[in-house]
């Protein structure tokens, strides 16, 4: 009898089974399923409170062991003269269990070694990224490194061009456009049948809402993913250009 049994000291049913085997100094390769099953079940019986949530995995393995034992008991009384091969075949489930246990044992041992390394590692301290140095470094950095005055003028011109397209009114009715991802994808494909190439910006209205921008971008990305469009950008801040896929890119271009 074992007495004062607890399940929670084991990492799982395989850990329990392995512990029982090791306690008896049996070689995993020659487990006697009958003996081990008896011990395993005896152990589960001794557990004072079975928390079913937690113990279910232990019970599943118990059931597997019983099934295994039953199969072996039913087939063991062999007729004399039967081939060894057949006996080995019957033993196979036990062999599988042994293999599985052995694999688990290797990782259990590796875990202990990693635990030692981690304990050593926990005694070594690094240092967080030096925020003071980051701040100092930022002070010396030109955030406009690749921007020229003409870039700025072009950006302004683009803004103004967009602004002039709409008559400014103090009040206007804003109808929420019924935008959908599928709708935007259709619009893009329709445009692509009419024009060889066009820009992402040209797909947007003169004062696009955030929703419109997001849906249009998502629609483009989705079409690109499906190989229905190709996207290009000449350089930083450049327009994003939409073109049909080059021939041979994708066979499934038909709608």
């Amino acid at each position, binding site marked *: 009898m074992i007495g004062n049994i607890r399940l929670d000291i084991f990492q799982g049913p395989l850990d329990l089974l392995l512990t029982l085997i090791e306690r008896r100094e049996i070689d995993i390769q020659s487990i006697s399923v009958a003996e081990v099953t008896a011990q395993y079940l005896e152990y589960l019986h001794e557990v004072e409170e079975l928390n079913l949530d937690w113990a279910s995995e232990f019970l599943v393995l118990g059931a597997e062991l019983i099934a295994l034992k039953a199969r072996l008991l039913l087939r063991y009384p062999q007729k004399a003269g039967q081939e060894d091969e057949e006996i080995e075949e019957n033993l196979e489930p036990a062999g599988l269990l042994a293999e599985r246990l052995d694999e688990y044992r290797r990782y259990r041992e590796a875990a202990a070694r990693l635990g030692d390394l981690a304990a050593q590692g926990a005694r070594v*301290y*690094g*240092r*967080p990224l*030096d*925020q*003071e*140095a*980051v701040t*100092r*470094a*930022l002070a*010396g*950095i*030109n*955030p*406009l*490194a*690749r*921007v*020229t*005055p*003409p*870039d*700025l*003028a*072009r*950006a*302004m*011109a*683009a*803004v*103004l*061009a*967009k*602004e002039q397209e709409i008559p400014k009114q103090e009040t206007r009715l804003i109808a929420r456009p019924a935008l959908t991802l599928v709708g935007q994808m259709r619009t893009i494909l329709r445009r692509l049948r009419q024009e060889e190439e066009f820009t992402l910006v040209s797909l947007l209205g003169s*004062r*696009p809402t*955030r929703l419109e921008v997001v849906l249009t971008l998502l629609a483009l990305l989705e079409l690109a993913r499906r190989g229905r469009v190709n996207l290009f950008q000449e350089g*930083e*801040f450049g327009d994003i250009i939409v073109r049909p896929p080059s021939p041979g890119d994708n066979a499934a271009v038909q709608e």
Partner: protein
Amino acid sequence: MPLLFSEDKRAALECLLFVAGGPVPVSTLAACLGLSKDDVVELAAELKSLYDEEGRGLQIREVAGGYQMCTRPQFANYIEAFLQPELPSLSMAALETLAIIAYRQPITRAEIEYIRGVKVEGVLNTLLSRGLIQETGRKDAPGRPILYTTTPRFLEFLGLKDLSDLPPLDDAAAGRE
């Protein structure tokens, strides 16, 4: 030279200053090392002289009632080169907003938003934190909104003498074709 303290305590002090990431008061160091404040001062002086040997990149600095481990100023260039990739470059939205402020300053947030048709609060914060724009007073209008202008740094970064040096907008619009 005979050591006044065990090398152990000096090495421990070195560890503390390393992990701290900033100045550490003498009293804290004394408590952690189990030494008196005077002992800590003496130990720190030893460590400092060790760090002052030639060819070292780090130094022990006495600051505001404590000690700090930090880099020597002459290596700032290397550190900047190292930390630089952490910074993302300006987005198109930031560039457009910056352009509006540059050409229309002083300007309020609402005016920028009216021109761009989108909210610009996040973008304004980016531009402020990068030192490209500044708040300069308030507009005499309902709600007294903040006015934004570009900074001298902005001109410096673009290599412009003053704001009249900005490219005229007509040219840019023409260059668009």
